[in-house]
């Protein structure tokens, strides 16, 4: 599946995005490493939803947009609003993973009317001194994203298979650079002060083997968002949608069906 582009907002920024499926709109906000094509988890979700999966400014084909985005939540949130406006989407189910979960939570807190439901998987953006977490940046420069996967070998399998080695490695480093812009040196974005504004049905999920966002962060997010639920994804590292695409898609689909869709008459 190929990427589409659309021009959004007063800055006329180009957004590269995938879109597939029918049903209610589902906005997917990717993790620290962006996306590896239209991933299997997204394809599975597209069986039930109109899936929109954009690259955030700074990631993948939008690498040159990083300079113009402030590191706080406002520019990113306005950017996502601009995108929804350009695509004529009034409101969407918003699913975010990793840094994308932070962006999703900001969207739901700042412009609640545009969000129908929220799924936050391995969310970054809170820091608990007692829990900490592996540093996603202080890693061997030859294999900088190894820590995000639950098993060695997965990094090569997911990021490098069938790709030019240098291109894939540069993209890996630049995607981590983009993440660093918002999360350096400690992934505390201040979102904790805004989370109580979230009122839509919300699911928090943490991966069993995620060392960057240890499962102990789950209760902190749940407690900050009234009425939210908390679950676990077994046998997955930080990038749960790559490692467990079926479980990831099922968790999202089942939650939205059960809690955020009007019963069919």
């Amino acid at each position, binding site marked *: 599946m190929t990427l589409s582009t659309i021009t959004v907002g007063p800055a006329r920024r180009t957004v590269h995005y995938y879109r597939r499926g029918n049903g209610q709109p589902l906005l997917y906000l990717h993790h620290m490493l962006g996306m590896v094509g239209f991933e299997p988890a997204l394809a599975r979700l597209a069986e039930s939803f109109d899936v929109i999966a954009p690259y955030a400014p700074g990631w993948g084909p939008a690498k040159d947009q*990083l300079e113009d985005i402030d590191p706080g939540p406002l520019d990113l949130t306005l950017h996502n609003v601009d995108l929804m406006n350009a695509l004529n989407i009034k409101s969407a189910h918003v699913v975010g993973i990793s840094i994308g979960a932070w962006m999703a939570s900001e969207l739901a807190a700042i412009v609640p009317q545009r969000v129908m439901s929220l799924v936050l998987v391995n969310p970054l953006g809170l820091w608990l001194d007692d829990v900490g977490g592996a540093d996603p940046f*202080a890693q061997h420069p*030859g294999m900088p994203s190894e820590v995000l996967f639950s098993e060695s070998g997965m990094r090569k399998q997911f990021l490098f298979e069938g790709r030019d080695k240098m291109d894939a490695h540069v993209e890996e*480093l*630049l995607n*981590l*650079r983009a993440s*660093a*812009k918002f999360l350096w*040196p400690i992934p505390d974005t201040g979102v904790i002060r805004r989370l109580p504004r979230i009122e839509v049905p919300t699911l928090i999920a943490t991966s069993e083997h995620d060392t960057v966002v240890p499962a102990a962060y789950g209760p902190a997010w749940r407690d900050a968002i009234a009425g939210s639920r908390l679950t676990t994804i077994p046998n997955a590292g930080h990038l749960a949608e790559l490692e467990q695409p079926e479980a990831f898609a099922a968790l999202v689909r089942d939650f939205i069906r059960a809690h955020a869709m009007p019963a069919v008459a």
Partner: protein
Amino acid sequence: MKFHWFNLMPWPYLPDDFTEKHRSVWVDVDSRLFDARKANRIYNDYLDLLELAEDVGYDGLGINEHHQNAYGLMPSPQLMAATLARRTHRAAILLLGQSLALYDPPTRVAEEMAMIDCISGGRLISGFPVGSSMDDNYACGVNPATLREQYHEAHDLIMRAWKDPDVFAWNGKHYKLRYVNLWPRPVQNPPPIWIPGGGSLETWDFCAQHKYNYSYLSFSGYIRGAQLMEGFWQRMETLGSDFNPYQAAFAQQICVAETDAEAQRLYEKHARYFFSRCLHVYPGFADAPGYRTEPTIRAGLVSQMAGQSSALNQAAALSWREMIDKGYIVAGSPDSVAEQIEKVVDSLKIGHLVCLLHFGDMPNDLCRYSTEMFATKVIPQMRSKWKGYEDHWSPKPMALQDRAEPRTVTPFPTHSNEPARQPVAEVK
């Protein structure tokens, strides 16, 4: 040809099992290995060596900036420069860092360098390094995604602060100052500017654009360095910059003794201390994502420590002969050192050699010996090299007769039964 004496100021008491028991000499190095009472002696010994270097004829006294680092005890090179400005009289003060993005506001750098230039009568060389990832990103928390933006903005602000005689407002992306008005200002305006770096394409272009000196601070020696310096000179030519060897400097480990065999006996263990313990850096701190730009990554240029973690681990395993043959260290009798130095200078085409005559846990007396041997028996053989090129990158101090010297101020005699005399009237 100019020769500068440079000391990283390493901690000399890292234990024998340091590399097995600890993951890094830098950033998260175990502070329990530090002993402040021993540091009292070490700092003073190292400063003594710098002062000695002036006495025996070196052109510049080199100092630089590292943080949370057991091979570099100078988080604040400006403090070292301040003592040297008072205690030395002739040599350049080669301040090869303050890493600009670490100072907010960056006018702090402009102020401190101006102070040092005033105190020393215009002997400052101001180094503007981007700084290492270990220092900038990990020890000091600067965001790697914006580090280079901050560096360039800080540079522009400092240069304007030095040059613009009027108060101005700086409305930058990273720094906002309503009233910039530098006070004091440097004697040399601006002082010569050197850009210490590893290998980054942007740094080379920056040096060409502003006609700054490029200083390659490598620990892997001149043979590995030659390839990178070749890239530098080619880039300068491409950008239309006239060749001048004084626009480049290179740092090299050097040690001299009466004979080659004596050099090995005296220095080998200290070189091994340096290559194994001092450069034992956790690779995860070597290169934060964003520290290298895309063109630099694609050019295959790795940051010093990332590249060195392999190259230098090899160095530690080499025989003494191999260390010399591969250029990690220049060592031997005065004549064999002179021969090697000629190769260094010819292959790198540099007019400034930054001589790392102290390395690892070398004791002071031994370093004195090597420093004096090099000054008296090697430097004279090389002095006339690059005759005919003008060195635009050394300080232009005030004339000696116009320069202030520190004076011994004797206290006015006082007696317990008399009121203290008022000195103000006396001075006139």
